[in-house]
Each structure stands twice: as C-alpha cells, then as structure tokens.
C-alpha cells in the first residue's frame, strides 16, 4: 500500500515517538519511584533512585490506607459502588428509553429526544448550585437523604448521564431492522419481551461504548461528589478523598504521592485489561 519508509526518516520518527512517550509517562514514573522514599528523601532527591526501599513503600501505603482523612478502602468501595450501580442503571434505563424513543415516532417521543440532545450542551456549573438545593428540598420532602448518600449520587448520575446515553443508544437502535421485532411479535413475544429478548442483547456493543464513556467520567468526577457529599462528609469518593487528604497534608509528598498512586492504580489496571475497548469506546463516543 504505502511505499517503504526511508531508514533515516524511520529513525527520526521513532526517536520522536520515544521522546513523546517518555514525556507522557514521566509523571507516572516519578510517582512510582518516589513512593519508595520517605519525605526527606523525596525533597532531597526527587529524580534519582537514591533512598528507595521496599520497607518505605509498605510504610507509606499503610500510612495512607489507614489514614482517617483518606480511608482508602472505604473511598475505593464507595467510588466502585457508585460507578457500578450508575453504569448498570444507565445501561438499563438508557436502552429502554432509547428503544421507546426510536420505535415510536410521535410528537412526544421526538420532543423527549430533542430535549435530551439539547441538554447535552448544559454545563454542570449552571445547574450545580440549584441542584444541591433541589436535592436538599426533595430529600426533606420525601424523607430520604439525597445529599451525602450513595443513592442520591447515583440518582444524579442517572440524570446527567442520561442524555448522552440515550443519544448514543437511540442511534444504535435505528440500525436494528424493525423486521426482527415484527417476527418476534408474530411468534408471540410480548411488547416488553421484544426489548429484553431481542433488542437488549443486540445493543451490547453500544452499551459497552456508553459504559466506558460514562465510567471514565463517573469514576474521575470530582465536582459533583464534592458538592453533594461535602469535603468533610462521612461518605467520600476517591477523588474527593484525595482532595481532602492533600488539603490536610500540605507538602507531605510521600503521603500525597502514595495516595495519588493508589487512586490511579484501579484505572490503569482496567486500561491494561481492556485497552482496545476503552480506546475504541472513547472514539465512538466522540465521533457519534
């Protein structure tokens, strides 16, 4: 297809590639070597390997994990729970809504769809302050705590992620031939059964896409949980915990970097396992 590259340009391109890769990986590398040092060692020699020891790493990790401000396992569990439940509900409800919108061409479904699409331009900043007061009032009214609670946050993520999820899934339902549904209907499948037996299984690839897009956003989101849970609340997600932890340990880089490493590891592990899906999902989400 393409002509074979000249050796000189190959070497130059390769060198550029390696240099850029070194640059993008450099902060991760620095974090990785410095978690093996104590605070003084980091300040004295942040780049070198001097002062690194396994003992120091375990000490740093246990300091951070057992720290009452950070409480790693608790924050990790909270983040994981919020992310997983939100993703499952978004996939389920998003698919249902996308299917109904796509298969019913009425004034109402078009209006609902247009509202969802238009709402994608709404920045979080413009709704965040009234959101807190609305949730406080609704919570008081129904007698459930909507702020400072995991169900409340999941509810908020279903609301915010809904528009994009419906948009992508509706686009995908359009590509599923309607004849399939007619055939199922003739064979005696109920209307709701068509969705669960025919459409939902076919939606899987695009559900993976929306799950990746929503997952990256929900797992890393700071602003929404920090506003809803509060900086010093009992329930904390990982980003909120990191922020609270750093706030209380200014310049204690051994602890801060260890906390950062612990916060990064889950995402990196998932990326190493599902690299291809994640990269494709991110592109699909942007292009659609």
């Amino acid at each position, binding site marked *: 297809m393409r002509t074979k590259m000249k050796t000189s340009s190959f070497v130059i391109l390769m060198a550029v590639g390696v240099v850029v890769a070194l640059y993008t990986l450099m902060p991760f590398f*620095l974090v990785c070597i410095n978690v093996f040092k104590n605070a003084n060692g980091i300040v004295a020699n942040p780049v070198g390997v001097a002062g690194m020891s396994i003992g120091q790493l375990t000490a740093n990790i246990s300091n951070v994990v057992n720290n009452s401000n950070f409480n790693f396992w608790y924050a990790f569990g909270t983040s994981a729970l919020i992310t997983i439940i939100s993703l499952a509900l978004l996939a389920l409800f998003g698919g249902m809504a996308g299917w*109904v919108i796509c298969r019913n061409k009425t004034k109402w479904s078009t209006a609902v769809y247009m509202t969802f699409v238009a709402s994608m331009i709404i920045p979080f900043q*413009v709704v965040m302050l009234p959101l807190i007061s609305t949730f406080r009032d609704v919570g008081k009214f129904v007698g459930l705590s909507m702020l400072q609670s995991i169900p409340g946050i999941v509810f908020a993520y279903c609301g915010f992620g809904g528009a994009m999820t419906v948009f992508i899934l509706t686009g995908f339902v359009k590509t599923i031939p309607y004849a399939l549904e007619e055939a199922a209907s003739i064979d005696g499948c109920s209307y709701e059964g068509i969705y669960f037996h025919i459409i939902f299984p076919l939606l899987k690839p695009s559900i993976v896409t929306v799950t990746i897009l929503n997952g990256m956003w929900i797992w*890393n989101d700071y602003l929404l949980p920090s506003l809803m849970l509060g900086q010093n609340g009992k329930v904390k997600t990982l980003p909120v915990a990191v922020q609270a932890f750093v706030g209380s340990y200014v310049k204690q880089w051994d602890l801060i970097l260890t906390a950062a490493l612990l916060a990064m590891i889950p995402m990196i592990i998932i*990326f190493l396992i599902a690299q291809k899906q994640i990269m494709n999902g991110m*592109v699909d989400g942007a292009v659609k």
Partner: protein
Amino acid sequence: MNANTTGKKVMSLALLVVGTVLMVGSLVMDFTGSGSPMRGPMLIIGALGILAGMYFFPTLARHRGIINFIFLFPLLFCFAVTVIIPLVLGIFYSMTDWNGVKMNAFIGLANYMTMFKDPGFLWSILLTFLFVVFNMVLVNVIGFSLALLCTSRLKGIGFFRAAYFLPNLIGGIVLGYVWQFVFNNVLVKITATAFGMQNSILANTPTAFAAIIVVYIWQYAGYIMLIYINGLVTIPGDVLEAAAIDGASPTLTLFQIKIPMIMSTITICTFLTLTSAFKQFDVNMALTNGSGSVANFLGNYLTNGTQMLALNIYNTAISKNSYALGQAKAVLFFIILACISLIQVRISNSKEVEL
C-alpha cells in the same frame, strides 16, 4: 384464560391501590410533620407498586402505551430532577439574592451588573479565552501530529498509542497534584542546579498559566490523537496509492489529500477541545487553585491570576458564599457554551450539505 385475566386484573388493581395508599400516606405524613423514617421507603414502594400495577393491567389496547411510559419514566424522572428543574431554578435564582438556601427578593439583573464590574471576573473570562485559543490550536496540532506518527509504519505503534492516551484515564484532581509535585519539586531541583533558578514556575502567574496549558495538553492530546487516527484510517488506501504513483510528495499528500479528507474529524476535535478547555476545572483547582498575582489589570491588583471561569464560579459560590452571583456567572458560562455549540451544529450541517 378468563380466570387468568381476572386474577391479573385483581392483582393489578390491588397493586395500584396499595401503591396509591402508600404514596398518599407518605405525603400526608410529610405535611403533618411526622419525622418517621418510614416515610421515604413508603413513597418509593408506593411508586413501584403503581408502576407494577400498570404493568400487570390486562389490556391489549393500552399495553404498548403503558410499557412506553414505564420504559421512559425512570430516566426522564432523574433527568427532570437533576437537570431541567435546577436549570430553570438556576436562571431564576441568578436574578435574586438567593443564598443557597432561600431567597428574599427579586433583584433583576443586579447580579449581572456586579459581575461585569468585578475585575477579577473579567480577568477570568480573558484568561479562559486565552486558554481555549492556545489549547484548541496546540492540542489539535499535537494530537494530529501524533496521529500521523501512530499511523505510520513504525514499530511498537500499539505501545505508543496506549502511552499517549494513558494520561486521559486519570482524573484531573489526582493529575493536578502529581504535576504540582513535578513542577514544585522535580523541575525546581533541575533548574536550581542548572541555572540557579530557585522559584517554581507555579509561583509566577504567566508561567503558572503556561504550566496549566502544558498539563492540559499532556492530558488531552492523546484522546484527540485517537479521534484523528480514527479519521485517518478511513481514508481509502487507493487514493493514497494513486497519489504516490502520481509522484506526490508526503507533504503534498498530507495537505492536499489527508487534511481535506478528514475535515469532519477536524471539526469534531476542534469543538471537543474548545468546550472541554472552556470547562476546565479539576486541573486548575489542584495545580494552582487560581492563585497568582496580577499587578495591574484595568488599574486593579488581582490575586486570582490563574483562576479560570469554572473555578471562579465555584469559588464565588462555595468559598465566598455568594450563591446568586455565582449562579449569574454560571448562566453567562452556559450562554457562551450554548453559542459555541450552535456554531458547531451550523458548521457540521453545512459540511454535510456540501458532501
């Protein structure tokens, strides 16, 4: 068959009645001021009961409509409570003296007047626009160059791609602190030994601003690169082959064939970087928290030298406790973003017509 239908009808009606009773009961308890912890669960079980009752209601004619409603309801309900109601309230609150809990007076556009007289806010707007322009150009140029690199016939392309994309996975807060470490400790150490510069680049407003741009590019260029790669691989191979046979140089191929053929991708990436740079918050907060001095901006001394719009809104409302003013700023933020999006829709629609 008949007995079955009757049974279903009874069950459905029973569920509807129980659901309504529970919901009404919990609302009555709400108005009578009962502090019973059962109030919330009662409401939810009641709502679920009504939905289940509707589902089991044995009617062939209405069944489709009922299922449509049940399928749409959960997401629409969440969406209305988290987006639509706060948006409407927010636009209203921006014209009042709202303090986050209650409002006392409607004050018209006074908040908007105050906001435009605040030099710190004007500085934030200016800074955000600068940031957006710098990033839109730099992220796209770098992302596109990396995409070219990653579609060439190098060895280890998969590794490069993953390495460039990796920063995009990590949340802005964590990244911000890691880079704060890099700038304040590692870089200072290097510059101190090499040039005798003891100050961190984060301590000086212009360099701190440059630092935020560097971190943003580092985080975002890999993502933009992936989208460009996706665009580049859709260019048909025979077109490139034809160009090569006709003796087109690689530069000519790039500017005359590749770039024109991925114009829609360029539009997508441009607007993606535009909106995302405009909304930048996490890195800004973790890296500098908006600090930095500006000696003279419109005759004022400012201390929010690196504070961009999103952070300015947050600090106005949360740190300074001026909720109504912060909300007014947020409405302006929304209007600007809405205009950008409308322009984007225009451009991509006109492109489609041309094709």
